[in-house]
């Protein structure tokens, strides 16, 4: 009986907590429960959620990607540079950003599988490199239409309407102009990654690599190729996050995106606790991102000061990690 209770707690505890949180805020904070508030929560977690889904793929193969935040801000700056200074169209800008994300992921993968740099260090190095690189073309300035360039000319290009549409368009759902485009993209990517990791043979092999890479290679899995692919997925999703951020801001702001890395890693790790998975999974990551979003929205509406936010996020993360590793180890211990 006790075992069953523990099992139930591990499996549904986090979801029950999530529902409890929603019920509590709905009662305590007027206006929390409603489509507008829901859309706002979703919007606030969409970009970190997309990054978190990418990092989930690297966690699945037993790796880690610390460069996602830097890839996102690089994509932000690259799209601004491409449209404002080089006067490219939206499609070119998006293609450049996605290509950059894939390339960075590929290099991360190479560093890890070919040059044997430990994953945390390789992606940490890449993070520094990108943070520096994105500042070089503009001497550390933000990019906006009308800025004066090095040679004295003025940047004439603008963020095209099509590009801004990616970040600012809202679809009608129940209410006019309710659902923001980034939320739709977040949900789309979440479904894709969920299908990929959970239901394709590629996903299954990636989990096998994360669990026992040697066993995976001895059944003929191209382990290195899958690892590189995981980092490329992570790089591409991070660049999508950066594109959406740029499209929302409408300028190449050098200072934005500071919190992206920590928030998205937290979401992915909180995801371990969802449904008692005790391993990285797309559904858990999406719920983890939502959990943090709901908590912060509720607290904001109850007038909690903004500077408590990081503390709350950290507390949730630590609690989720204890939940995952301590309770799950007790469960497997009981199984034997």
């Amino acid at each position: 009986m006790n075992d069953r209770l523990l099992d139930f707690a591990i499996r549904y505890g986090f979801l029950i907590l999530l529902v409890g949180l929603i019920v509590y805020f709905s009662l305590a904070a007027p206006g929390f429960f409603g489509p507008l508030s829901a859309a706002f929560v979703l919007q606030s977690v969409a970009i970190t959620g997309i990054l978190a889904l990418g990092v989930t793929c690297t966690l699945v193969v037993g790796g880690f990607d610390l460069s996602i935040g830097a890839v996102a801000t690089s994509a932000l700056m690259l799209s601004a540079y491409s449209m404002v200074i080089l006067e490219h169209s939206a499609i070119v800008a998006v293609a450049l950003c996605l290509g950059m994300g894939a390339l960075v992921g590929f290099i991360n993968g190479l560093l890890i599988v070919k040059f044997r740099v430990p994953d945390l260090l390789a992606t940490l190095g890449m993070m520094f490199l990108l943070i520096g690189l994105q500042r070089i073309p503009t001497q550390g300035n933000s990019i906006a239409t009308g800025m004066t360039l090095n040679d004295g000319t003025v940047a004439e290009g603008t963020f095209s309407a099509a590009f801004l549409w990616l970040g600012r368009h809202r679809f009608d759902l129940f209410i006019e102009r309710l659902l923001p485009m980034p939320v739709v993209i977040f949900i789309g990517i979440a479904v894709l990654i969920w299908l990929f990791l959970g239901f394709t043979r590629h996903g299954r092999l990636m989990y096998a690599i994360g669990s026992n890479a040697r066993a995976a290679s001895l059944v003929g899995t191209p382990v290195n190729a899958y690892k590189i692919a995981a980092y490329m997925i992570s790089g591409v999703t991070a660049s999508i996050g950066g594109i959406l951020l740029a499209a929302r801001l409408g300028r190449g702001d050098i200072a934005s995106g500071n919190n992206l890395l920590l928030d998205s890693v937290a979401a992915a790790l909180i995801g371990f606790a969802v449904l008692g998975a005790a391993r990285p999974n797309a559904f858990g990551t999406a719920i983890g991102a939502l959990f943090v979003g709901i908590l912060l929205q509720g607290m904001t509406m109850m007038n909690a000061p903004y500077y408590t936010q990081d503390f709350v996020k950290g507390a949730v993360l630590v609690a989720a990690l204890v939940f995952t590793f301590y309770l799950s180890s007790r469960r497997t211990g009981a199984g034997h």
Partner: protein
Amino acid sequence: MAGDALSVRDLQKSFGKNHVLRGIDLSLTPGSVTVLMGANGAGKSTLVKVICGHHPADGGTMTLAGDRFTPHDAADAIRKGVVTVHQSIDDGVIPDLDVANNLMLDRLVERGHGLFVRETQLREEAAKVAAAMGIDVNLKARVSDLAVADRQMIAIARAMARAPKVLILDEPTSSLSATEADRLFALIDRLRDQGVAILYISHRMSDIRRLADRIVVMRDGAISGLFETAPLDYEAAVTAMLGHRMTEVDVTVQDGTTPVLELSDLRLHSGAAPINLEARDGEVVALVGLLGSGKSRLAEILFGMAGPAAGTMRISGAAYSPRSVEDAIAQGVFLSPKDRGTNAVVPDFGIADNMTLPFLKSLSVGSFLDARRQRGRTQAMVDQLGIVCQTVTDSIGTLSGGNQQKVMIARWLLEQAKVLLLDEPFQGVDIGARRDIGRHIRATAQGRATLVFLAEIDEALEIADRIVVLHENAIVGEHRNQNIDLAALVADISGSDIPTTGAQP
């Protein structure tokens, strides 16, 4: 005995229901090398761990130079004069420090040492220790840059700095080349002359011949042989180690039909003797040999993990030279590796995912897995092999060792192999599961050639049509598994008379 350095009487140790040491009697005399032999799982490591204070004994007594010896922990055993150099060398050295610091490390942790390291003095003393041990390496070199043998020497030199009465060496040559091993042996000779009682654990026959003054053999947690009169009877020691009670399994020998796998003048290492071998359709060939005989290397070469030094391989007449594991599998060569925990089991997965892992592609529609077919195929195998489980989606960790191994073998029976390689398929498997696996391998042998890599004779006699003996990277004997001459087989395995009996036909 009064003269014994260490004497052990009726030592007992159990882990749960598993009775590992069943009354061990052992004595070590100063100035002699006692070799401890035993197959995997015989209880050697447990015995060593009890002696060196890692595990407490459940029963029995140990005396060290006449005094009662009951170490609380490893540090206590060392203080009392029992020093162990473990199998993994890096336990004994600190790779990032230089040689001098490693040699003097124990000095640094002494209480009276003081805060600052006296660099010159430390180096002078280290040089003295190195000279005394006959170690000839640059004292400023980082240990991680040294060859394995040198690291081993330094680990032993560190152990010797404590002037032990008893030195235990656990398979010290397992990662050494022949010349490196020679240097280690010279060091051991020197220590023997200094009056240290040495317990040397190995099943490499060449080491044993070189060093042993006495041989103690363990099997199934008990001493199964003691040899102390010169000349030592090595063959009897191997028999005591491997055992060959006649098994109850009756093998109806199949000679096979058409040749499937042909090895011509294959050399496992440059300089090794060429191997010629033919395995036929429907035949089960057991390749037996001790550790270091080249079995694992041959399996690796056949499975595309390493290239041969020379020679050719053919499968059904066509040249076969796999570039990778994927390539080998694509050409119909499957390997179930040894040490399933490290090499085969995916601990996070259920039974069905574990079993079908190599063949997910054929169980998918496009990229998407067909979970129902996956479960169906697994269930069929579970029924055929008698795997005891609740459902095929249960975690692999819920199964017993024998059932886990059945899943790992079944993995490679899902699709038709041309050549099936099984490396130590009975490792960590109870007798019931071993019989089930053996029966199933023999029953499905048609349509492929099966090669089983084994250390134990019993197991080979149960499963094989033909037993091929490897010794030092060469085939030294071949026996049809019918009215087999066990004495000749054991002689081949221990390599005692290579030129005369059992040479290749």
